[in-house]
């Protein structure tokens, strides 16, 4: 009889223990993180850092990996709490704009750079590499009419193009421009007239104010600071309202007719 009683007590304790673990698991907030960039790219690396940070902050994180267009579709249609890194130069192409419902934070910003090959000095007419998503009229306005614009698929292709001697100049992002300068083949300067690229974090089905605090803390971690420092990325710091207003203003400049 005593044995049976002991078994019963033990069983009750076991059930209660299991139940309490279950309760703890259920209290974990769930969030989906969308990986929408190619492996090796900044989107992928940053998303991974956010994912790790959210796990460390106690979130129950699930991930989805897909291409940008599919990611935008999921982001717009999902009814689950979801975050995704985004960038203001992609808003027109993918029809996903920053607004008060989805904007969480500006993580960093960087200007476009104009690089000139050492070998092109003294040339009358120049060939200029640009990304296929750039506004060619704006580039022509800034660099001058006496240029031949040469479209490339992406920033890496442009870098290879100027290193291979295809073009005299390129309009490229900060990372590739640093690489070019490091090669010693030419010089680069940040443009004050071309649009500024802002890397952001967006969310849906979330308490934006609450998640902004969490995301901001993650972005101040050692890993993130190292990520930004090694790439010399500028971190703007402001209120949510001001950041959103700035992002909405700057994203207009990326429209391509």
């Amino acid at each position, binding site marked *: 009889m005593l044995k049976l009683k002991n078994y019963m007590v033990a069983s009750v304790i076991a059930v209660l223990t299991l139940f309490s673990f279950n309760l703890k698991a259920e209290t974990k907030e769930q969030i989906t993180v969308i990986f929408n960039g190619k*492996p090796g790219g900044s989107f992928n690396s940053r998303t991974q850092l956010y994912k790790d940070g959210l796990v460390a902050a106690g979130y129950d994180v699930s991930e989805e990996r897909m291409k940008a267009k599919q990611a935008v579709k999921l982001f717009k249609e999902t009814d689950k709490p979801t975050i995704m890194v985004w960038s203001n130069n992609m808003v027109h192409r993918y029809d996903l704009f920053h607004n008060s419902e989805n904007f969480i934070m500006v993580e960093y910003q960087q200007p476009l750079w104009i690089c000139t090959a050492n070998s092109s000095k003294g040339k009358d007419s120049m060939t200029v590499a640009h990304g296929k998503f750039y506004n060619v009229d704006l580039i022509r306005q800034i660099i001058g009419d006496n240029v031949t614009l040469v479209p*490339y698929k992406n920033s890496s292709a442009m870098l290879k193009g100027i290193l291979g001697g295809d073009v005299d100049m390129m309009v490229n992002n900060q990372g590739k421009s640093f690489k070019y300068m490091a090669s010693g083949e030419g010089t680069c300067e940040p443009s004050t007239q071309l649009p500024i690229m802002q890397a952001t974090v967006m969310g849906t089905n979330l308490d934006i104010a609450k998640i902004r605090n969490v995301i901001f803390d993650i972005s101040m971690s050692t890993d993130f600071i190292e990520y930004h420092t090694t790439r010399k990325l500028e971190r703007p710091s402001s209120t949510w309202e001001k950041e959103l207003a700035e992002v909405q203003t700057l994203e207009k400049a990326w429209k391509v007719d």
Partner: protein
Amino acid sequence: MEHLIAVFFGLVAGVITGVIPGAGVTVAMIVATPLLLSFDVVQLLLFYMSLASMVQFTGTIPAVYLGVPGETNSLPAVIEGTKFNKHKLSKLAIGVSAIGSVIGSVVAVALTFSLIVFLTSKITIFFSNNVKFYLYLFIIIFCVCLYNRRNFLINIFLCVLGFTLSLPGENDISYDLRLTFGSEDLEYGIPLIPVLIGFLVVPTMAKMYTSNDSSSFLPSVHLPFQKVLKYFRKRCVFSAVRGSVVGYLCGFVPGVSTVLSTNASYGLEKKINPLKPGNKLVASETANNSGQFASMLPLLLIGIPITGSEIILYSFLVDAGWSPFQFDNLENNADMIFKQIVPWFVLVNVVGLIVAWPLAKQILKIFRGSKNITVALLAVCMLILNTYLGILDYRVWLWSICLIVFSALGLMLKKYETIPLIFMFILGTDIEGVFYRQLII
């Protein structure tokens, strides 16, 4: 010890990847992600190098025995290997390919060692649009003039069809999407694997199924290794050296590296020795391994990945703490290549030679059963692979439709070599961009 672990897993992954038709280094890298996340920079490089080198060896086995390309690089091995197979000399084909592959690797290392200073100063030449333009021109001429017994009309038709299939979705030079017919799935273009299965694997399976000689894909002549070595020494040495050099140079071409290495070398050998399948096979397989080493140099030296699988590798390297600003570290990187990578690379190739020879026997045993069972197994494998990759790509319906349509087309074209189509499909948008830029620069 850590390095040995990385090399071991790379070799195992290479063996598996090589013998599964359609599975390439890129897919293998993706599948191995859980393992790779725990590797450091050198381990990652060793894993990749072992995997990619081993695939060159084992990819030849299904290509020769079954007429099925392990990956796109194995296409010449399919054409020339099946000629050996018909004469029940597959073992000879595997043997000379493996020896050629080792020679290709050794020559690539030797070339790199002697050219390292020149390479670090001039490597960017290979990024030039001008160089790519003439290389692509060469590929197109090669496709039109050399395949299908110089039947220009059918070759042009295949080139045009391949190029047309490359058109949907984004292109290299403009913002606009094209030929998507309102389908979001088509915005990313037509997927590669259904094209490869439909135009390469399905015709091969059809040929196997309709073949009267049930043992036409099974070798029956046993050859000792010494005889293979003697055959190689007597007939294939010059082809191997030629293949190594051509493959090495072509390995630097972004995007296509080993595919171009193999096929350019094969094309050259076809000109020099049109009636000698052994020479053509050795030249292409030698070029494959040589090109594989060369293709890694831009990534190792200047931090620019030039092939699809290297892009995956690059992402793991960056995550493992590799500096993305590699221009600062040319000398350090060259030092790392020769002290930490090259010794393992040579060892891996020797292991490849040792493994490929007996492994071929095991592969043969697996497929020794009924021809119909082999065809059915292949069909099921292809279906599973296509569906699995389609699901991973979130476009399983498009992948399935493409598989059905291209398989039907592949059956209609089964008596032709479809390599020109594959070339133009893979390179189409890049060729378009290069030709366009060549016009305006």
